[in-house]
């Protein structure tokens, strides 16, 4: 008997009991759809997070105060530290340095108000973070020198305050009651998994130190962003920055009072988390596929019992064990394969829907359905059909014709 004939026969036999076959297929459909949807969404989330980390800037190092817990009285990072790092003789691999002060504040325009993040920056910040203005200008040196009351705002803030995402320069907003003139609007960077990079108000660092985000001592900063010249020099730059800070802070050997993280560190951490998440989701989904497989086994066992006489007759007419085995294995594989195909389509639809819902909630997840996961699901579901069909089929093949024919 050729394969096609057996498949046709299996289909005929399955169509004889449509409801039962349908319900069995449903078990596989749910399992496969769950695997596809979960893994796709997981991968989508992963690429979104990766993109957003890369969107922060390129070749970046983040320098924070505080090292391991053993260090007592860590010295704060200061503007002078930032200046030293910017010295091309001490740190030749560093191309840009941006000290940052951060805090949240209430921003008001007319009757509209919003709580957002206030970031005090130097002009270099725009370069280091890849920020561009869509209108107006960014903070420049003269704003720094004059401690000017000017602000560059993100599109999200503009939308919250003015109800529009353009034509906002020249307006005056109040930050913690103090008037600031809007001099620029940032180009939208889109939402990310962590924070919305468009929900931001940028003011000159000098202004922030003096009026909004006072620190003690006054030259202290919260964070220093360092940009390496090339991706290959990120590690070298990290070493140079560490050396500079160690000598300036006079730390003991091995007891740094600062932490340097690179984008790669964030990426590695993030992908570890999302990988675990994907595997976890996929694993949970795989369990439902397994349950679907047990459903197939159950139905095939019932089917073998029901058709004992038929099996006896086929054997009486000359069917070998292998003929019967193939007949029932084909049926279970056809069940699981149909389930697999429908499941792939359904899983794709679910992933697509999740992507849409996520996008509507400002958390862009683009579920990525790759060929490998589709192949995997197909192979896996067929294997489930074969594996769980094996026992019932074997039972059928080993029936003795005399007893099977006598079966009522």
């Amino acid at each position, binding site marked *: *008997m050729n394969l096609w*004939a057996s498949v046709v026969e299996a289909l*005929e*036999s399955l169509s*004889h009991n449509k409801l039962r076959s349908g319900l069995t297929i449903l078990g596989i459909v749910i399992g496969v759809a769950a695997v596809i949807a979960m893994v796709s969404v997981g991968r989508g989330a992963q690429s979104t997070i990766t993109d957003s980390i890369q969107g922060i800037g390129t070749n970046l190092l983040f320098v924070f105060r505080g090292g391991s817990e053993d260090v007592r009285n860590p010295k704060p990072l200061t503007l002078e530290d930032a200046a030293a790092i910017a010295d091309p003789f001490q740190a030749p691999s560093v191309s840009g340095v941006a000290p940052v002060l951060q805090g949240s504040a209430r921003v008001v325009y007319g009757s509209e108000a919003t709580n957002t993040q206030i970031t005090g920056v130097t002009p270099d910040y725009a370069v280091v973070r890849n920020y561009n203005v869509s209108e107006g200008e960014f903070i420049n040196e003269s704003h720094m020198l004059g401690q000017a009351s000017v602000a560059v705002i993100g599109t999200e803030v503009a939308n919250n305050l003015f109800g529009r995402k353009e034509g906002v320069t020249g307006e005056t907003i109040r930050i913690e009651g103090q008037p600031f003139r809007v001099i620029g609007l940032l180009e939208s960077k889109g939402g990310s998994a962590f924070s919305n990079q468009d929900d931001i108000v940028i003011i000159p660092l000098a202004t922030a130190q003096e009026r909004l985000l006072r620190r003690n001592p006054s030259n202290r900063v919260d964070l220093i962003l360092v940009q390496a010249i090339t991706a290959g020099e990120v590690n070298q730059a990290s070493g140079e920055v560490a050396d500079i800070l160690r000598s300036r802070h006079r730390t003991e050997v091995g007891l740094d009072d600062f932490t340097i993280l690179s984008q790669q560190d964030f990426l590695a951490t993030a992908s570890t988390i999302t990988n675990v998440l994907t595997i976890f989701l996929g694993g949970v989904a795989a369990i439902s596929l397994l349950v679907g497989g047990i459903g197939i086994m159950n139905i095939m066992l019932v089917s073998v019992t029901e058709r004992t*006489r*038929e099996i006896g*007759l*086929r*054997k*009486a*007419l*000359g*069917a*070998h*064990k*292998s*003929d019967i085995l193939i007949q029932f294995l084909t049926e279970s594989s056809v069940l699981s394969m149909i389930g697999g195909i429908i499941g792939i389509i359904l899983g794709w639809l679910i992933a697509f829907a999740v992507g849409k819902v996520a996008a509507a909630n400002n958390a862009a997840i683009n579920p990525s359905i790759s060929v490998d996961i589709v192949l995997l699901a197909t192979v896996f579901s067929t294997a489930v059909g074969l594996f769980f069909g094996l026992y019932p089929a074997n039972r059928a093949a080993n029936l*003795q*014709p*005399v007893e099977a*024919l006598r079966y009522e």
Partner: protein
Amino acid sequence: MTDLVIEARNLSKVYKMGSQEVHALRGLSTTVARGEVVAIMGPSGSGKSTLMNIIGCLDRPTSGDYILDGESVGQLGDDQLATIRNRKVGFIFQSFNLLSRTTALGNVELPMRYAGVNSRTRRERAVAALEAVGLKDRLHHRPNELSGGQQQRVAIARALVNDPAMLLADEPTGNLDSKSGKEVLEMLLNLNRDRGTTLVIVTHDPKVAERTQRVIRIQDGVVAEEGEL
């Protein structure tokens, strides 16, 4: 020496029912010549069914020799027995045993599928066999669309397609009314007359038995009486 289709020598069959041993056959010997029409009769519990199963290669004797159409088949494996059944035995059952989901044509094709006959030859031979039993206009009917007599004729066509050494009929008229039972029996006897098909009919109906050439009576696992009725 006559040409023997069935040669059974000293067949015995022991079933184990729990700790008890049941002797269904106790050293039974018999022969059937080619072209003969033989009835096997006997009360229930006589070992008649066991003998039929062994003759039909559905079961193996515990000891003794069984030679079917010149081949010793007593101790072959399951798959070898299946091949022998496929080629040498045509079964006709009391309850027809047609596949209910399949058409008359599909049912008749079934033994040829297991014989590895290609689909065109299969179709041609199945059509010819159904024509021979007078069901030319019922090729695509399913069993539930056929009368009992017609179903048994489909079964006869199915038994014949692989050109077996003998037809083994188990109460072929048992589930039929007297008219169609008679028709089916006539058809079987005609096959014997026209084609020389060896016919072994297991029955307890004396009306069927008296149409055969010879009756083998089984009692307590041995041949009690052999000869014309």
